[in-house]
């Protein structure tokens, strides 16, 4: 296709396309990190992950309304407050769900799948009853809209930059929480040997609840960030679930680095293919490739070759 364009145009588009891929990558990472913790680390299949994201989105929506109504002065920065609240709300709901449901099902991963699917239906209807069936839009502060024009052709969407920065922060935060903090050590101890961890005085139940909550909370942040990009409706969460699971599984459950690598691979593949063919076919091809590779390498991209 280079034939039709000047060299300048071609490089610009390469840059733009690379950037589009990076945004998609950030989106995938945000979606998948929470799930990677819950599925990869705890072995729980949370089909309601999308609904936790939408919870974050609705929290942001409410915030934008309250802020415009009562404290318009805060409007330019309300998004940060909204994200914090989104995390708290999703975290709290996550802990509640873990306590009320998940903890009874740790030995039955397939059953967590069904139960959380039920949960997702209920949450959808709750959203619908509370917020109405219509898609709601969130008004963004002006500084978050629009783009930075680098050249005539290359324009960097600010919200894209924002999502990328957010992804970076969240990923590092997760890394520190899980791999550098005392609590993270407890989490990993429980995952590796629940009985032993209990025996040395770790409150395994609390660790479970908090880990699940953390995963949900990250979903909440993701949902909050997505209001900048997409729509918020009661059933919007379902759109993400298959993609998200594929990212985690493709990366190799249990490996956060794998999740990030797989998000990168899938997003770049999809974004590149979208450029050369119709969106539908790009999607089908991406999914097919992922499924195909998973069939050849079911353990995913990154996984420890462990001794059984």
């Amino acid at each position, binding site marked *: 296709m280079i034939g039709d364009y000047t060299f300048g145009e071609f490089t610009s588009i390469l840059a733009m396309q690379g950037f589009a891929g990076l945004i998609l990558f950030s989106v995938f990472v945000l979606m998948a990190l929470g799930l990677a913790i819950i599925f990869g680390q705890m072995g729980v299949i949370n089909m309601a992950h999308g609904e936790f994201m939408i919870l974050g989105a609705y929290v942001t929506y409410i915030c934008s309304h309250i802020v415009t109504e009562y404290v318009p002065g805060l409007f330019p920065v309300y998004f940060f407050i909204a994200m914090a609240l989104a995390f708290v709300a999703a975290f709290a709901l996550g802990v509640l769900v873990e306590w009320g449901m998940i903890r009874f099902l740790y030995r039955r991963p397939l059953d967590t799948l069904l139960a959380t699917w039920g949960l997702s239906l209920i949450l959808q209807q709750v959203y619908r009853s509370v917020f109405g069936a219509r898609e709601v839009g969130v008004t963004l502060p002006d500084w978050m809209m629009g783009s930075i024009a680098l050249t005539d052709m290359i324009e960097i969407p600010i919200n894209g930059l924002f999502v990328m920065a957010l992804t970076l922060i969240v990923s590092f935060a997760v890394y520190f929480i899980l791999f550098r903090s005392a609590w993270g050590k407890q989490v990993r101890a429980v995952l590796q040997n629940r009985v032993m961890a209990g025996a040395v005085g770790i409150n395994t139940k609390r660790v479970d609840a908090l880990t699940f909550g953390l995963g949900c909370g990250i979903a909440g942040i993701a949902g909050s960030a997505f209001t900048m990009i997409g729509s918020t409706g009661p059933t919007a969460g379902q759109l993400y679930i298959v993609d998200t699971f594929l990212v985690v599984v493709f990366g190799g459950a249990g490996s956060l680095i794998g999740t990030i690598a797989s998000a990168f691979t899938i997003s770049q593949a999809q974004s590149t293919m979208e450029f050369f063919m119709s*969106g539908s076919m790009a999607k089908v091809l991406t999914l097919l490739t992922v499924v195909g590779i998973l069939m050849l390498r079911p353990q995913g991209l990154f996984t420890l070759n462990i001794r059984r």
Partner: protein
Amino acid sequence: MRDDVPGNTLSVSRRTLLAGIASLPVLAMMGQPLLASDYPTATVNTTGLAVTDDTVKVGILHSVTGTMAISETGSVQAEKLAIEQINAAGGVLGRKIEFIQEDGASDWPTFAEKAKKLLVQDKAAAVFGCWTSASRKAVLPVFEQYNGMLYYPTFYEGLEESPNVIYTGQEATQQILAGIDWVVKEKGAKSFYLLGSDYIWPRTSNKIARKHIEKLGLEVVGEEYYPLGHTQFNSVINKIKLRKPDVIYAIVVGGSNVAFYKQLKAAGIDLAKEKPLLLTISVTEDEILGIGGENMAGAYAMMKYFQSLDNDNNKAFVEAFKKMWGDNIVIGDVTQAAYLGPWLWKAAVEKAGSFDIDKVKAASPGIELTTAPEGYVKIHDNHHLWSKARVGRAKLDGQYEVVYETSDLMEPDPFPEGYQ
């Protein structure tokens, strides 16, 4: 038609239905009410429909639950308003309309099932309903088999002409051709980028648009489809930037809409600058609520009806609608088309002097409605409506400003020669 708009029951505002009656001025033009006693049931109903000496039963068949509820709610409201107004003005052949509402639940077999129930069990004299093409395709055989009347409100892809259906929305050529001519003439558009959600309506509409653009000697520089519910449009936006079309012709639907327009704006394409200009046939005032006026402002839509339409019929209609369903409500093209259904049926029944389906069918072509909010409509022999085509420009407040309308009515042409 448009599909997969996530959502569900918009809790119908509980205001009294009687509010609608206050809008009687609309009815002044409808002439004197007819008396049921002049039309004995035995003669006006020879096929065993649910018609008594003072009532007639009709069906309303839309999705109240499921993903389509969000879109179909407006149609239900409009149909109820029309029925209310007709009853207040004396009913049909002197008989009050009673409606039976069924939920299609966004599920096509359920539509077929409920359509059958309305026709077989309830003996409905007419059914107002359906929204997506898929639901219409599902019920069509039922209406043909049991000989019922369906009034279908949505703008759609055409390629269909059933004696049992009156299509009160525009078919694709009516909606598209005039609008394209207009952007070419007024805006000097030379190149187009076609984009759509991946299913029959956008594909067929784009096909018609492409043929028309090529007939005009202009260029289509790209044509793309994305799966329903897709939310990442950065790649296609890049392509658009690269190809630099004068017009983005977009038929994105549902949740994808929101993502598409937000990302378009974020990528630095300000629709208000009209470089490129965006032309759509899928975003009514209803959809703008979700997209946000600030993301949509400056885009052009091709419809036959906008809420801002300036005529007496429409003023009365909007007022009555808001009275019945609340001030915050917006009215889109399909809602208005749904409102026409009961009125067109009433006119046909009274012209035929009978509720019998076959007579209503025969009487329908040529029926006129001077009181339509969109102005004047008339039923064509092919059961679609003659109607004007209009172009509106989206404003920040989520309303459209009408910038163009055809001087003549557009002839409906569901099987357009040369566009297939």
